[in-house]
């Protein structure tokens, strides 16, 4: 652990990523304190940046900076909730597939192939059409899209761990499956899972923004970056700030999570695959 920590802090990219992520989290938590205006305050429509509105105002006559600050809340919550969902469904599936080769593995992996064969957006649309539209439905849709990624990676890691000597030894010693799973496999899965969740959070935020950009979203008075961008693109030739600000916010946040995820991976297991 100590070695990992050292590797982590000596990795400049990881540190930058960590700082960005902590910063975005802080912004989200203190949004109501640091935002210059309340979210429902109206001023003028589509004004350029000024002393009163650092990033100008949007088509709803609202302060862009305020909305970008509040927007971090939904991105982070929706992103993490959907990843939690993906973990809760994806990890057991992946672990089971990896631990029980043969029929179980085949059934799980072939089902995942089927899911992967569709564009993620199609699945999200179907989920949204089946549930009542709203942010909870978006979270569920994004969670479902991410299940295959977790299941596949966890299966691969489980397969590797299973062939490790200490697990084989435990099996030979007659340990129960449950014992082996909780005491031998699970600890080994934690590291990769942390890395995967961090990277996954980045892509989940991206997916929420993407769906929202296509108009698949919940209450529009909840500030959200993808939705802001979609709205701003209509007035692009009049006013560019309402588009640039949320666009940069999404990009920087995801960049932060990616840097942090890469750093964690290098720190926790330098031998792990460095690509994605």
């Amino acid at each position, binding site marked *: 652990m100590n070695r990992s920590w050292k590797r982590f802090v000596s990795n400049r990219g990881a540190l930058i990523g960590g700082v960005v992520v902590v910063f975005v989290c802080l912004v989200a938590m203190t949004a109501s304190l640091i935002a210059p205006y309340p979210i429902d305050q109206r001023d003028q429509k589509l004004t350029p940046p000024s002393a009163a509105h650092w990033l100008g105002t949007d088509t*709803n006559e609202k302060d862009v900076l305020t909305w970008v600050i509040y927007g971090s809340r939904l991105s982070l919550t929706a992103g993490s909730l959907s990843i939690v969902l993906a973990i809760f469904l994806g990890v057991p599936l992946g672990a089971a597939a990896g631990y029980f080769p043969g029929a179980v593995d085949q059934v799980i992996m072939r089902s995942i192939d089927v899911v992967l064969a569709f564009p993620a957006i199609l699945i999200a649309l179907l989920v949204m*059409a089946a549930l009542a539209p709203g942010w909870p439905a978006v979270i569920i849709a994004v969670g479902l899209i991410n299940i295959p990624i977790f299941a596949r990676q966890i299966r691969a890691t489980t397969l590797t761990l299973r062939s490790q000597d200490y697990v084989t030894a435990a099996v030979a010693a007659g340990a129960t499956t449950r014992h082996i799973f909780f005491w031998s496999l699970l600890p080994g899965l934690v590291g990769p899972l942390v890395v995967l969740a961090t990277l996954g959070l980045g892509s989940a935020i991206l997916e929420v923004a993407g769906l929202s950009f296509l*108009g698949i979203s919940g209450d*529009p*008075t909840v500030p959200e970056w993808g939705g802001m961008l979609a709205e701003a*693109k209509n007035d692009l*030739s009049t006013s560019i700030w309402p588009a640039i600000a949320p666009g940069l916010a999404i990009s920087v946040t995801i960049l932060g999570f990616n840097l942090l995820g890469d750093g964690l991976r290098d720190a926790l297991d330098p031998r792990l695959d460095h690509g994605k």
Partner: protein
Amino acid sequence: MRSLLFCLIVSTFLGCGGPAVPSNILIYGRGDDADRLDPIHTDIGESVTVMCNIYDTLVTYDDETLELVPSLAESWSTSDDGLEWTFHLRKGVTFHDGTPLDADAVLFSLERLTVPMHPFVFDQVIPYVQSFEAIESVTAVDPLTVKVRLKRPFAAFLTTMAMFPASIVSPTAVKKYEGEFWKHPVGTGPFQFDSWNVNQQLTLLSFDDHWRGRPEIDGVIFLPVGESAVRVKQLLRGEIDIADNLPPAEIDSLAKNPHVIVQEKAGMNTGYLTMNNDKAPLDDQRIREAIWCAIDRDQLIKSAYSGHATKAVTLVPPTLWGSHTDLTDREYDPEKAKQLLAAAAADGVPTPIRLQLFVMTDPRPYMQQPRQTAIFIKDSLAKVGIETEIVTNENSQHFRRMTRGEHQLGLAGWTADMPDPDNFLYTLLDLDNINDVGGNNMSRYRNQKVHDLLAQAKVEMNQETRAELYRAAQEQIFADAPLVPLVHTSVRNVQSDAVSGYLLHPSSLNRLRLSKLAK
């Protein structure tokens, strides 16, 4: 080969070698493509825009006003009981395929609309069938005379003959293409169909033998461009000549450009906030009135319509006869709204009031920025103590859920199918129109008095008397406040200064016959 590739790359970036555009073809950019070009099988605006240039109707609107003028019918008369209409057709008119226009063609076209299971109707979805159900029979008296018999007197009958579903189609072409007629449309209009790459472009060419004379331009290309920002850019670069359905703020900034002309006409539409009268607490008139008072519609018009709309007091737009223009509006008054809410609360209406507001995703002419409007309403209601949750649904889903009465509040609106108050009041507020599939009385307003007045006005033939009946109905409706009328929007089209002669029509039909191009 390598040097060729190099040239290709260099010139790609320099942007030379652009396309050679045939100079006299008008390019019309809009948000979406047409769906099918058979007049009886569609109800979307993008198809109507194309069809009103391919087909003619028996009667039509004047080039600038809503007055009905002769088109394929040179003259017409009606029997004293109002049940029999005789149309005398224009001589020497031919369809684009050479078929002569005669009574049989008119009979054929109208019967496709009115005869159930007509042998040349290959798709049973006929959205406007209800508007023509008063027709009992159509007969060809002689080659140039057609008689239409009605089941009962129907005041708006002549107006329905100007609606696009009553367009006259070439029987030869329908019989030839059968189920695929919609992609090979043949009419008598000023432009004839040339080609159509779905979602890419639709080309019409001028018809040399059009009975009003050949249009000055050589043709029209309709270009579906989903993103409005892209349409703006294309217009500025001269890639398109006319752009419709742009967001209000963009039109305002375009209006400052000397090479761009913005046309504006008061439209025949109403955007309103529907309130589900069946659901508590909206079954209480005071709550509905409070919501009315809580919304500053003047500010809403500035904010979501860039000022290009008029405040609505009743559903019937002021440009239409029969609109009750003397009603004293409930002005924006948050204090009064709070008092009304307090009074209701004192009588046991549970507080705080929480409501769901249903919102559509895509703009409509009467609701150009649904998202912005919804946010505005939510903010306004919050100020008087009503909490709202906005629920966004894709358009078709939105209306479907509201007809089933799943909403409490919802954004809605109506663009006139025909210029008649019946089309607004009966369709949107009569108790006949409450049902789970397609009932447009989404406010679920049930008032026997209003119903009786509207039913009486439907069969009354005297327009003065009808207007009187409609005014009485509107007074009752205003008092009950089953919904909040928000705005009547202006229709605005943006065109480059190369285009002249094209006039925006109050019916929102985009008839391009008179356009000229100077390129």
